[in-house]
């Protein structure tokens, strides 16, 4: 058989095969060019999908982390709180430089008591304890009236006034937030006594609240003040074991424990604006009545103004 004969024999194959070869159309999926393009597009889609997925996942994690706001936020708040307390300390030092020292304030508070003792000792007979107490009550009340009368003078420098108030306000707000975290003290506290006074304009640059409390039993006390706007803020106070005085510059916590029988004197400097109402509240969470806590005695608030020398 020759190649020509084979070629002719091939011509005698089934007509189905001949028609099949004529009508054959390669499917799209058998097209290598199409399949290569499809594979390339699929790879690109997979890469893009991985990239988008990673972007979405990273954003979602960032949102979750910011929502949780763990200790880092508290640290930031603590740092801001400490910065504010430092600024408050600076203002307190300024106050000291201006001649308004805590010793002077204490002395002013103790003077009435010393004068009272002299008065009492000069009297004939043995005064009853109640009489002594009553007089002690009277003198602080007179002192209060005197303080109100004296609280006429003084114009507060606007710049320092606003700065100090802002610092104190901010510190109080931050402390208030910590109080909230400590268990919502304001809601459960027992109001022992309040004092309201309206600051009048004058030459004074500083205003001070003197709170004299005689304790019969140990209790945690909290001092808070409310401005005219009704915004209740916690005062930063700290119990000083030695001097039994509380100064704002040492404030780290608004709660303090007073031992039994100790007399606690609060001295707090707060710069208020003209015409502003201030309410100072002495409260406690202890399960004690006012009489029990205060030993049936008294609590007195002084409001005074000082002029910068």
């Amino acid at each position, binding site marked *: *058989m*020759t*190649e*020509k004969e*084979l*070629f*002719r*024999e*091939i*011509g*005698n*194959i*089934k*007509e*189905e*095969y*001949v*028609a*099949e*070869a*004529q009508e*054959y159309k*390669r499917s799209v999926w*058998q*097209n*290598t*060019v199409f399949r290569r393009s499809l594979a390339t597009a699929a790879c690109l889609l997979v890469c893009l999908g991985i990239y988008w997925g990673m972007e979405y996942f990273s954003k979602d994690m960032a949102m979750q982390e910011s929502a949780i706001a763990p200790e880092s936020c508290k640290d930031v708040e603590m740092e801001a709180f400490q910065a504010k307390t430092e600024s408050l300390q600076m203002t307190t030092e300024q106050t000291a430089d201006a001649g308004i020292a805590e010793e002077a304030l204490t002395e002013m508070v103790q003077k009435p008591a010393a004068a009272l003792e002299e008065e009492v000792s000069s009297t004939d007979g043995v005064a009853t304890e109640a009489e002594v107490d009553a007089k002690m009550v009277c003198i602080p009340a007179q002192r209060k009236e005197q303080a109100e009368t004296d609280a006429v003078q003084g114009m507060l420098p606007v710049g320092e006034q606003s700065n100090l108030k802002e610092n104190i306000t901010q510190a109080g707000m931050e402390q208030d937030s910590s109080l909230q975290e400590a268990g919502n003290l304001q809601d459960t506290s027992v109001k022992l006594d309040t004092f309201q006074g309206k600051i009048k304009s004058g030459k004074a640059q500083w205003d001070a609240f003197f709170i004299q409390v005689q304790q019969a039993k140990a209790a945690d006390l909290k001092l808070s003040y409310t401005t005219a706007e009704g915004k209740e803020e916690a005062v930063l106070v700290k119990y000083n074991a030695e001097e039994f005085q509380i100064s704002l510059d040492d404030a780290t916590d608004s709660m303090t424990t007073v031992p039994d029988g100790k007399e606690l004197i609060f001295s707090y400097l707060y710069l208020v604006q003209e015409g502003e109402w201030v309410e100072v509240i002495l409260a406690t969470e202890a399960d004690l009545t006012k009489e029990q806590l205060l030993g049936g005695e008294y609590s007195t608030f002084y409001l005074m103004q000082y002029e910068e020398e």
Partner: protein
Amino acid sequence: MEDSQIIELYWQRSENAIAETSKKYGKLCRHIAMNIVGNFSDAEECENDTYVAVWNAIPPTRPQIFSAFISKIARNIALNRYEYNKAQKRNNQFDMVLSELEECLACKQTVEDAMEEKEVASVLDGFLEGLSKEKRVIFVRRYWYSDSVKEIAKRMQISESKVKTVLFRTRKELQEYLLQHGVTV
């Protein structure tokens, strides 16, 4: 027009049969003839001779697949024309087709007890049946339609190298198949 309708025209001896055939399969006949004879004038002559042969064949024949029927007639006519023109000129492409088929033969000695066309064709049918559709189409397009490798690659939407590879392997398989079924030289 459907093939059945064209065949019916032949049976009705209508002159429109040839017109319709030329309209539908004229290009195919010229293509098959062109692949074998190698020039356009001879291809046209082969096309015309094909129409005459179909007119003479139908009736009594009623082909099942009219396209394959007319293609086979055109192929045989073109091959006869090629042999007629061989002494005068050569068709490089068709010569390549014949030289490739020469590889399928064990040797060039003439078969003394040559098998009948029908048996050889049946063997070839069996061989083609065992091939995949793609291989079979490539083989038929190459050795039945005498298409070039480039044309096959374009039609199949594959590379020319793949066409050559498939043809080479198919020829080897055909050689072994022919030997197994006694088609030897």
